[in-house]
């Protein structure tokens, strides 16, 4: 709640409320100023717009402009009455279900949900049918029609509050149920509820006017905007402005509702869509390759966040052909940023710059080369649950690179993938290809992902925390598969992990990253013998239980 109080009120909400306020002012003063002009029958019938009659006169010689403004009062009164009815009933139902027993709540909410699915006009027609056409029955009809959605929204908001501790405490203390609702639940939802009422007031206004418009609401000689629109329609050929007046007022009310509702949504939504600004890349001078023997060469790599914060600060490293390089560090150290920059998959707005960024003979900074990038860099991501498209079958996703960039037919791509899946020891590959990602386990998805990247026989496999989301036994299996790919295909691997134990078990060389810089470079032998110098590396070692890798004497643990 506290963060909501400090949040700024959006401009659209203010604008919407001001427009609603303006309508109220018109409703108060218009009948006083123009009441006679609006109802006095004059011989000056169906006149064109003039200085005396801005929108002309109707078939009884009454001023259309005055009628439009004067109608504001009745329209607003009906809308206010109907809104009040919806709110009171809706809030009572939606709030009280939370203090009642659970089964009552379930039943009521099911019924409300079923009602909300019907257009509210259906309920309004039923009420109008029972009570007959007329001003009061239209207001009651729209009020009742608005109850389900108000009950639903109140119930949602109350539900969020009702589960908080202090409400539970009050319940334990034996506070009577209605008091629990009025003293503890209602005050906590009153803020959002008030704004909600403002936006639903204008919507109610439009709905009531629609009933008057079809002839079920206000009856002659009384008039609201809907009635005016209805009366203007037969004369629309000779006096088109007669329908324009009330139309403009109704659109005005609609816009007020929209602005208030939008503002409310922004106000209530903590996410807030803050746009990311892209920072212009400060270009580092391109340099010549100094390590032509390396497969991957990275020199002076700098990555900046959209806000300008430096995430990776001028790091350099190489990967030899067939080497497994580990990049280790805690979250936020810049290791994933490094990997994604190398894979040219940095997020929107993130600026990547380097003196050299090279994979074999491919300059990664040059841009373009889509097909070569796709074929030569294989990627395995962190969370298999979210990195596969939930709407597509596995076969279609995993064969995409082969079909798009190798030009394989669907059948040929599937055959190749089936071999890859077999190599990753996935049983029933045909069945897996026909399934959706949510039907497969995390370990299965990761192995399938590795299999699919093998189809193009990439030079480099970037594995960004591929085992973090998996449980321990599955982790070991995925690591084994990565090792097998490296051994059988000679694929170089850039392996990212926060788990120094895993890195130690898999990698030939290890880089330790911290706050965007490489603080230590180790061979796997150095790491295994604990010949580490940087205190951060020692801290990482101390923090990681390394039971699943090679056993070590206990005193070595104590030393670091």
């Amino acid at each position: 709640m506290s963060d909501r109080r400090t949040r700024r009120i959006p401009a659209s909400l203010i604008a919407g409320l001001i427009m609603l306020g303006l309508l109220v002012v018109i409703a108060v003063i218009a009948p006083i100023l123009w009441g006679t002009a609006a109802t006095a029958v004059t011989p000056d019938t169906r006149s064109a717009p003039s200085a005396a009659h801005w929108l002309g006169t109707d078939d009884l010689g009454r001023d259309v402009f005055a009628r439009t403004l004067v109608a504001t009062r009745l329209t607003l009164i009906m809308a206010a009455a109907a809104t009040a009815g919806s709110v009171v009933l809706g809030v009572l139902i939606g709030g009280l279900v939370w203090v009642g027993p659970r089964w009552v709540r379930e039943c009521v909410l099911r019924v409300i949900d079923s009602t909300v699915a019907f257009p509210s006009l259906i309920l309004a027609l039923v009420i109008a049918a029972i009570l007959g056409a007329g001003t009061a029955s239209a207001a009651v009809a729209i009020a009742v029609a608005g109850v389900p959605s108000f009950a639903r929204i109140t119930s949602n908001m109350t539900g969020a509050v009702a589960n908080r501790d202090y409400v539970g405490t009050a319940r334990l203390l034996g506070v009577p149920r209605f008091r629990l609702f009025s003293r503890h639940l209602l005050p906590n939802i009153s803020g959002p509820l008030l704004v909600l009422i403002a936006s639903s007031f204008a919507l109610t206004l439009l709905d009531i006017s629609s009933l008057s418009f079809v002839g079920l609401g206000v009856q002659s000689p009384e008039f609201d905007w809907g009635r005016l629109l209805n009366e203007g329609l037969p004369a629309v050929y000779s006096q088109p402005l007669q329908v324009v007046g009330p139309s403009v007022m109704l659109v005005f009310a609609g816009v007020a509702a929209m602005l208030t509702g939008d503002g409310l949504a922004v106000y209530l939504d903590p996410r807030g869509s803050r746009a990311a600004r892209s920072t212009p890349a400060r270009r580092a001078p391109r340099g010549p390759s100094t390590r032509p023997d390396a497969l991957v060469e990275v020199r002076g790599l700098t990555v900046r966040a959209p806000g300008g914060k430096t995430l990776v600060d001028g790091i350099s490293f190489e990967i030899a052909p067939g080497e497994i390089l580990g990049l280790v560090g805690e979250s936020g150290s810049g290791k994933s940023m490094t990997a994604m920059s190398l894979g040219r998959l940095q997020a929107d707005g993130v600026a990547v710059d380097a003196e050299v960024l090279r994979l074999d003979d491919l300059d990664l900074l040059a841009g373009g080369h889509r097909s070569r990038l796709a074929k030569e860099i294989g990627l395995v991501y962190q969370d298999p649950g979210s990195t596969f498209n939930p709407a597509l079958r596995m076969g279609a996703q995993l064969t995409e690179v082969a079909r798009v960039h190798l030009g394989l037919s669907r059948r040929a791509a599937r055959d190749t993938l089936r071999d890859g899946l077999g190599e990753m020891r996935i049983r029933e590959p045909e069945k897996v290809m026909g399934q959706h990602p949510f039907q497969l386990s995390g370990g299965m998805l990761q192995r399938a992902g590795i299999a699919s990247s093998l189809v193009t026989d990439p030079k480099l496999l970037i594995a960004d925390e591929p085992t973090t989301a998996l449980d321990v036994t599955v982790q070991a299996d995925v690591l084994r598969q990565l090792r097998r790919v490296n051994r059988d295909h000679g694929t170089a691997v850039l392996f990212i992990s926060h788990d120094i134990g895993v890195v130690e078990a898999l990698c030939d060389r290890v880089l330790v990253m911290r706050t965007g810089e490489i603080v230590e470079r180790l061979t796997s032998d150095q790491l295994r013998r604990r010949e580490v110098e940087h205190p951060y590396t020692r801290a990482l070692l101390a923090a990681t239980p390394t039971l699943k890798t090679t056993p070590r004497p206990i005193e070595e643990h104590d030393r670091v």
Partner: protein
Amino acid sequence: MSGVDLSVIAEAPAPPVRRRGGGSGWGSFALRRLGGLVLSLGLLVVLTFLIVPLIPGDPAVAILGANASPDAVAALRERLHLDQPLPLQFLDYLRGLATFDLGQSFRYNTPVTTTIATKLPYTATTALGAILLVIVIAIPVGMTIGVLTRSGRRPWLAVGFGTVAGFFASVPAYVAGTLLVVVFAIWLKLLPAGGAATQSAYVLPIVALALGPTFAVARVVVQETYAVLHQDYMRTARGRRLDAARLYIRHALPNLMASTLTLTGLILASMLGGAIVIETVFSLPGLGLEVVQAIIFRDFPVIQGIVLTVGALAILINLLIDVILGLIDPRTLGGSTHV
């Protein structure tokens, strides 16, 4: 009825992700959906039945007017079975429904089913045509705007579209219809102002009905596009170095459609209400004009029949949306629905 729907403000439940197991998919979907269907239909039947018993005072007097002769009142009471206890009346009503006998219209003395059969095509054409138009226009337009303005690109376009869409989304269909008649039928004389004589007579009603919801849905689509483009699986797709068409149409669109339909299902269903009201603007001889007349003349069998029909249409549209959702994203088959 109006462009903006309150229920959208309340957070729509995201389809819960069910991992593995329960693989029967459509089977469990049908089973679970059947419950909701029965409840919705049951509510509809009870609601329409209650119209007559809930009329204040003696329904027969209310229908015939205060000056009716006692004989006429007694005859009508007999005809409506008003002397029977309520449960028996309800059973009678159910029996009628089961045999598609909705009674006789008081005004025309013809079966209500005949009235509905002649009027339904006009309403269904406008409503379904408009819903189709909304989906066909709002999703591509919203997605294009969303892609063009992602991550704060082209802020002028985002603000401009937001303003224009917000304005049109808040114009109710009957006002839009009236203004369209003024512009296209009277000033420009391009299209007929009303009636249903020619195919072109449907253009203005469908456009008027679709206008607000199109922009309302497009606004949702823009926001959903932003959300989808930030998903991990879109990065995976970028990692396959696909061209823009494949990236957005093959990978973003299905997910976009799923979330959009979940969020806007209620807007689409509420267009039925707009279709009823808009018939007055265009003198379209559909269920809307008929039900208004029936309410004014207190022709209760016709009212009941039409409310039942429109309600059943709403249920059908909701069901259709759920089926489409299930086809796009099978995860939703196990989840909760918006009905």
